[in-house]
């Protein structure tokens, strides 16, 4: 491998700066730490935040897994894996249990995470209060003074309009009884996986230049009302491929007459469960 790049693309000073922000983020769970986001060789919105975090924490012995919409083999997942293979010469994997770092766009793997693993999330909109208060100067103060009541206005609007809390992804959570955090666009199905998770969860927003984190074994509680408690999505059927009834299912339209099937969104979990190895 011709080493024309520094290990993992970013220069050491930049990685150091990002690591400092990560440490601060871990010390204050859920708090958004600004960092000097670098230009990465991919457009904003494709995972520039996540890729910088991965570059900052990855070492030569790490095994990297990248998922996009729960899938290991979509273009973005494959490209990011190839990027780190080329610039860091590290091993990549699709196996959740073997991976030491998992970069993700929309999902937390169904296979339970273990202590020592690092989840890296690519975050488009880090500020959960943006819907209520568009002014950044104000949201900073609202976080600082813990003025979070208006966060429920969004949930109120959902119930008033749809009769239930219709927010299905990026469902706001409170971390360690303090900061309200946007868990990136993961489905609310994955929110409980963050609660007291043994793994480290790092969130990077490249465009907004913010890093936040959930350290291992930290309380992560989804917001709700007393009379409208937090609920998970449910499906009537099981996965058409592996028969799983306890994973997040994607609905797939198979023809023009409305025939549909449900299959696991986590491809690695599905393959393992069905005993298939496609790749």
């Amino acid at each position, binding site marked *: 491998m011709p080493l024309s790049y520094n290990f993992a693309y970013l220069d050491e000073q930049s990685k150091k700066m990002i690591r400092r922000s990560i440490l601060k983020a871990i010390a204050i769970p859920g708090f958004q730490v600004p960092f000097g986001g670098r230009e990465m060789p991919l457009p904003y919105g494709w995972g520039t935040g996540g890729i910088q975090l991965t570059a900052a924490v990855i070492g030569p012995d790490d095994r990297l897994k990248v998922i996009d919409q729960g899938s290991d083999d979509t273009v973005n997942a494959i490209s990011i894996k190839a990027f780190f293979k080329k610039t860091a010469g590290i091993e990549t994997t699709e196996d959740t249990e073997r991976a030491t770092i998992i970069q993700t766009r929309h999902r937390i793997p169904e296979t339970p995470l273990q202590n020592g693993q690092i989840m890296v999330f690519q975050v488009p909109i880090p500020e959960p209060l943006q819907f209520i208060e568009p002014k950044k100067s104000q949201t900073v103060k609202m976080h600082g003074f813990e*003025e979070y*009541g208006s*966060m429920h*206005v969004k949930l109120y609007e959902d119930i*008033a309009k749809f009769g239930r809390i219709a927010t299905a992804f990026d469902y706001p959570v409170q971390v360690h009884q303090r900061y309200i955090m946007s868990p990136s666009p993961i489905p609310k199905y994955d929110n409980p996986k963050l609660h007291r998770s043994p793994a480290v969860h790092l969130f990077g927003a490249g465009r907004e230049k913010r890093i936040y984190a959930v350290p291992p074994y930290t309380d992560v509680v989804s917001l709700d*009302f*007393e009379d*409208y408690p937090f609920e998970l999505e449910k499906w009537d059927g099981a996965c058409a491929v592996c028969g799983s009834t306890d994973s997040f299912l994607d609905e797939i339209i198979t023809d023009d007459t409305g025939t549909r099937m449900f299959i696991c969104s986590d491809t690695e979990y599905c393959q393992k469960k069905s005993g298939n190895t496609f790749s």
Partner: protein
Amino acid sequence: MTRMPENSPQPLLAVQHLSKFFGRQLGCHDISFAVSPGEVIGVVGESGSGKSTLLNCIAGRIKPSNGSVFFHSSEGMTDLCRCDEALMRKIIRTQTGYVTQNAAQGLKMHISAGGNIGEKLMAGGMRHYGQIRKMALAWLERVEIDPERIDDLPATFSGGMQQRLQIAANLVNAPKIMLMDEPTSGLDVSVQARLIDVLRKLVSGLHLSMVLVTHDLAVARLLCHRLYVMKQGEMVESGLSDQILDDPRQPYTQLLVSSVLKP
């Protein structure tokens, strides 16, 4: 001029020597007055006389250059200009309401009427949707808005309705004082009358204090117990409303009173 009202030894709000300069430009200068619980104070004067600047200083929206704003909260008499910002924000949020001339500034236009009323309740820690809903409906009724419209956006409301909604959204968490910046301007006369009617009922029913900034002397006479007249950032005259309006002493006040058109 800054005599405390005799009937109440402890004012709810006491403004002392408040000044605000915008660079070399004078906003308001050396203003002092006190508001007792349940008292309605009017601040009148022409445009640019510093009325809104004064109100914004009291509401903590701009930082005064000099002086103090004392508020009688559960923590005792607190100087909002010098206390901890967290405490100041808490007092402002829980014990004051602020109604703007332009409802679009005071309301969240992309959130339903019910959500706008419920926001302060949720900010106060209420986490029961049914209760929030019930209170929102009750308040819509109190400000004479059809409860059917609870899920409509304020943008679909008329100007008068928006203003009444803004008042409901500010009163729902039972603040001690309402700060109002020209609440009736920009509304036609019959709508104004209805708004004033609603306000009078609420003020007397809730034993609410109010600082009302207006250039409309008729509104001031109907609602206010006492009036303060401002001119070029300074307080020029103060007294009981009827006394000021019927027997103005200062030439500026005489001019102000005589310049009102009578149909």
